[in-house]
């Protein structure tokens, strides 16, 4: 696997000619989007006021913005479709191959529903799961797959309207774990303890419905960041050795976003909540900007680097 700086180098050196071409497309596209946007807005305003002139009904002004947004979204997606495809084919695909040649990339697929449900990280009912940018492969004999995911749950408000609420949006990673275990262990960001303090936080955590038993870990730094629930007190500690806790803290620091993970059925599931769609081409900022480049390179490296960072490749002897 290539290091992050090697990968950045690859992005700027090898992909540079392609990036320059794409950059031209991007500038054209952004101009086109602005022009179409202005014309579309004027059109909608005209149509809405004409309809109002005929009907004299105030409801027009309630439905017009709604229609404006939906229509705008459809037009926007239509206009950026080719550019997005080209970006993924010409930039993300070679970037992933450069990272490790054992990785395979499918822009339109995502990590399966069963993985999301099996992970037990989220207790809300899963009603809708979208995603893209699916990567699958083997790093040092460890199976890994990850993708962008957007999971939603459906609920009805008092008026009977259906709403979708986001459970999770971000990067979802599934890999093999290097130790045998039977229990289910879930590790979540510690919100209760940091909001309410140790005593009340702990009290709230130990009465969390829908979760297994609370496991108090013997690392102050880890306890501050995470809360652990498991069906087996001993196995949770067998998985979360002092070394792994330290590595997870470091990984969390690198990812810089809320991190939840779980150990279920021999696998590790990691959910990093970026709260946005990842690996999408930048449209209003230059592709050559370092910050934009780092978003692609950094996120990819973080996801694939998990195997090395958590030492998942150092398998226990009986698992070899």
């Amino acid at each position, binding site marked *: 696997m290539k290091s992050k700086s090697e990968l950045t180098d690859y992005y700027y050196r090898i992909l540079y000619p392609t990036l320059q071409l794409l950059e031209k497309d991007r500038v054209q596209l952004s101009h086109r989007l602005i022009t179409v946007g202005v014309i579309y807005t004027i059109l909608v305003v005209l149509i809405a006021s004409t309809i109002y002139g005929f009907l004299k009904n105030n409801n027009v002004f309630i439905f017009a913005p709604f229609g404006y947004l939906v229509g705008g979204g459809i037009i926007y997606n239509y206009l950026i479709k080719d550019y997005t495809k080209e970006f993924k084919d010409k930039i993300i695909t070679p970037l992933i191959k450069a990272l490790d040649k054992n990785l395979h990339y499918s822009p339109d697929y995502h990590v399966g529903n069963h993985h999301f449900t099996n992970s037990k990280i989220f207790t809300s009912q899963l009603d809708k799961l979208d995603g893209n940018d699916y990567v699958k492969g083997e790093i040092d004999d460890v199976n890994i797959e990850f993708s962008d995911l957007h999971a939603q749950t459906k609920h009805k408000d008092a008026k009977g309207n259906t709403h979708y609420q986001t459970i999770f949006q971000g990067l979802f990673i599934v890999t093999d774990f290097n*130790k045998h275990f039977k229990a289910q262990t879930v590790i979540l960001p510690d919100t209760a303890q940091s909001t309410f303090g140790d005593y009340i936080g702990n009290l709230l955590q130990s009465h969390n419905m829908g979760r297994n038993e609370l*496991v*108090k870990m*013997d690392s102050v730094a880890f306890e501050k960041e995470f809360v652990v629930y498991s069906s087996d*007190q*001993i*196995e*949770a*500690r*067998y998985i979360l*050795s*002092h*070394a792994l806790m330290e590595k997870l803290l470091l990984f969390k620091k690198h990812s810089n976003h809320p991190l939840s993970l779980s150990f279920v059925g021999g696998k590790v599931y990691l959910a990093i909540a970026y709260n946005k769609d990842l690996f999408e081409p930048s449209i209003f900022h230059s592709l050559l900007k370092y910050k934009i480049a780092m978003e692609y390179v950094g996120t990819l490296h973080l996801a694939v680097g998990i195997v090395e960072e958590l030492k998942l*490749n*150092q*398998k*226990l*002897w*009986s698992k*070899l």
Partner: protein
Amino acid sequence: MSTPFIILIVAVIVLVLMYNSLVAKKNQVQNIFASVDTQLKKRYDLLPNLVASVSQYMQHEKSILEDVTKLRAKANQANLSDKEKIDLDAKMSAALGSIMIAVENYPELKANENVMHLQRSLSEIEEQISASRRAYNQAVTDYNNALEQIPTNFMANFMRYTKKEVFEINENERQNINVKELFNTK
């Protein structure tokens, strides 16, 4: 319903809850100690084999090997208290740690399939034991806290609960981990 009666009911509920939580904490300690015990036994079972395999090579470490054998014999005695088991485990871990390190000095041993097998099994069990020790320590800490904190301390006093000891997680534990890592890498 009169006020004194309500106060009485609330008081009884509080007492019952306190009593139950203490009992639950005590049982948690016992349950986890049972798992620690099983794993310690698993480790003791491997020892005769290990000692037999390495003794012919290890001339300078005879005394450690004898210690291990003696400790094992002690551990197999019936009616050991939890505290005695904890002490024996600490001694055994230290002795095994020295053997593991000593193996490094004998190329014949490092090449011996049987010894390698034993060593790897031991280091895996060692990791499981370490996890159960940590779980046990947490359960004991919860239990001991309840024994000292108000208001459960009055109830605990009345129930004649006494504080329990935790496993020392000391320096040689960390050494064991280092040795383990040597063998876990491919």
